[in-house]
């Protein structure tokens, strides 16, 4: 198959000053499943469309394998794409939809049918081959769109939020199917989503984008455990990480009534006298009154095994919201006051000014 390389790829929409994708550098390995994730307008879809050839590259290059495809039209890139709304040809049967690319490529009819049937078998679509897309359910249409990509046996699969039109249950089901299918086929895949759960569960690596800039690209585990900056920290994980701006104190940062110890070298990296401390809800532990941070519980979500406390706290006259995971068997009541403290070794420190991670 092939690797994919974004080499300083930039896309500037006509009539705008700020690039939609700004000097993107990504090296995708052969057979890798890479997820592009970010909030809407972050440039993830544009990046994908640049790779597809549906969007011009204003500067930089895009390579598939060793071949520079920056100025190659989509049809000559040897890629297949699954669109958000599937983009099936409504007047063609499922079989014709799947075989259209092969027909254009001049593949003989028998081979074409055989390949279509093979893909249909893989996707459990055999009994629908003669139907028109409008006679299929959402999930089936999604599979036809996948089938259309698979049949071509391309070098790269491109998927643009292919699950966003499915209901929640089907989405979870299809998520695993797509992940296992692409791995079985061993085809390099670039997958765009705004859903961080999809990103974390499907990707070999995940690239987080914001405002056209790549924030971090890493394995889901690393992304979760070592977010490179405040944005990634807040974006990955649900419920989101608590981010608090705290003053430096002797030997650490002041966390309510306690001092969270931080190495001197780490604090020395920071600009200014405050740092941003990030701690995930599950890394907060409840402690006796007076130690740590005082939190008023506004909402308590009981999920059975755990409970999440959504509360607020006041630090230096500013109100912050805090989410903490607590024992599901003994959750506090709404309106209760609890005291929390980060577990040792489970905090993330960021420079308040630049948002970059401090220490490692």
């Amino acid at each position, binding site marked *: 198959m092939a690797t994919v390389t974004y080499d300083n790829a930039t896309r500037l929409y006509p009539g705008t000053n700020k690039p939609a994708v700004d000097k993107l550098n990504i090296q995708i390995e052969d057979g890798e499943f890479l997820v592009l994730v970010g909030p809407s307008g972050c440039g993830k879809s544009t990046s994908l469309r640049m790779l597809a050839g*549906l969007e011009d590259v204003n500067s930089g290059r895009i390579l598939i394998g060793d071949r520079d495809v920056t100025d190659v*039209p989509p049809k000559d890139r040897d890629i297949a794409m699954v*669109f958000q709304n599937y*983009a099936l*040809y409504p*007047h063609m049967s499922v079989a014709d939809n799947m075989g259209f690319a092969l027909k254009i490529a001049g593949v003989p009819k028998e081979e074409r049918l055989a390949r279509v049937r093979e893909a249909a078998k893989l996707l459990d679509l055999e009994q629908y081959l003669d139907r028109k897309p409008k006679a299929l359910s959402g999930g089936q249409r999604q599979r036809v769109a996948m089938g259309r990509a698979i049949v071509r046996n391309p070098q790269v699969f491109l998927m643009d939020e292919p699950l966003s039109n499915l209901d929640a249950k089907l989405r979870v089901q299809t998520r695993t199917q797509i992940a296992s299918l692409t791995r079985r086929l061993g085809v390099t895949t670039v997958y765009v989503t705004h859903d961080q759960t999809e990103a974390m569960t499907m990707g070999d690596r995940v690239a987080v984008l914001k405002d056209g800039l790549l924030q971090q690209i890493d394995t889901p585990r690393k992304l979760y455990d070592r977010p490179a900056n405040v944005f990634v920290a807040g974006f990955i994980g649900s419920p989101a990480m608590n981010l608090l701006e705290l003053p430096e104190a002797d030997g650490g940062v002041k966390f309510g009534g306690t001092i969270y110890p931080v190495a001197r070298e780490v604090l020395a990296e920071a600009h200014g006298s405050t740092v941003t401390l990030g701690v995930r809800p599950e890394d907060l532990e409840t402690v006796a009154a007076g130690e740590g941070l005082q939190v008023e519980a506004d909402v308590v979500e009981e999920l059975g095994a755990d409970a999440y406390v959504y509360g607020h706290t006041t630090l230096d006259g500013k109100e912050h919201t805090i989410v903490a995971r607590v024992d599901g068997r003994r959750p506090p009541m709404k309106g209760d006051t609890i005291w929390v403290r980060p577990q040792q070794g489970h905090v993330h420190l960021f420079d308040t000014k630049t948002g970059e991670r401090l220490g490692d």
Partner: protein
Amino acid sequence: MSVLNKTTAPEGHVERKAEATKSDKAVAGVSHVVLILWSVIVVLPLLWTFMSSFKSSSDIFASPFGLPTVWHFDNYSRAWQTAHIGEYFGNSVLVVGVSLVLVMLLGAMSAYVLARFKFWGNRFLYIMMLAGNTFPIFLAMVPLFKILQNIGILGTYQAMIATYTSFALAFTVFFLHSFFRNLPGEIAEAAAIDGAGEWRTFFQIMLPMARPGLASVAIFNFLGLWNQFLIPVTINASGPKVLSQGLFSYAQQMGYAVDFGALFAAVTVTVLPVLVVYIIFQRQLQGSVSQGTSR
């Protein structure tokens, strides 16, 4: 007092409700009567013409509203042959048929390009097309005559076909423009990735998707061109006559010795294709009109 108020209030409410349905009924009743009257006004003359086309002239005058005493089917053969209606029918089919194919092809292609491609002057061209719809055909007749004369094709099939095609083009582009505009762009992109070039995307993907729109415009154009009278009478006076024009000259030629039976037969032959198209494509026509307005 308060008790009284309490009881009257809901009653009044109910009464008002009853009134509303009554007036609804009244509106529905009146509009139905009007529509029925209108249909009668339209349908009766058609039926009368059709019936009279089987009568002899004397029969028509003797009992204008009676059934034919003898069924004169020979009216039709007389109209078809001696009045050359057959020949005119053929001319009409040729001219309208070729024009229709041309206008649909060219119209769909221009509408597609105007609706889906960005280029300098796009807006201007579209506005010109809109203006073409509003331009009164009467003003164009004399210049058109001169142009065709200068080119040297006045009174030929080509002249008629070219005129009909350009006459119907503006409306066709205007109508199909919104159709192509509303087709999902994702599908064109999918086709591009599947390896289809612009031409294949247009003919194999986008055109089939616009089929409902194409069908409606084709029907509209057929009706409009088939019934066209002003254009042939003006620019085709010397050329092979189309049906509407031939019928007119046939009625004129007869002077005072009118063969009404044959004339009505000729009228029936002229109207029949239009009627058939209307009946077959009723739904399409209604649908397209509502689609055109809602978009």
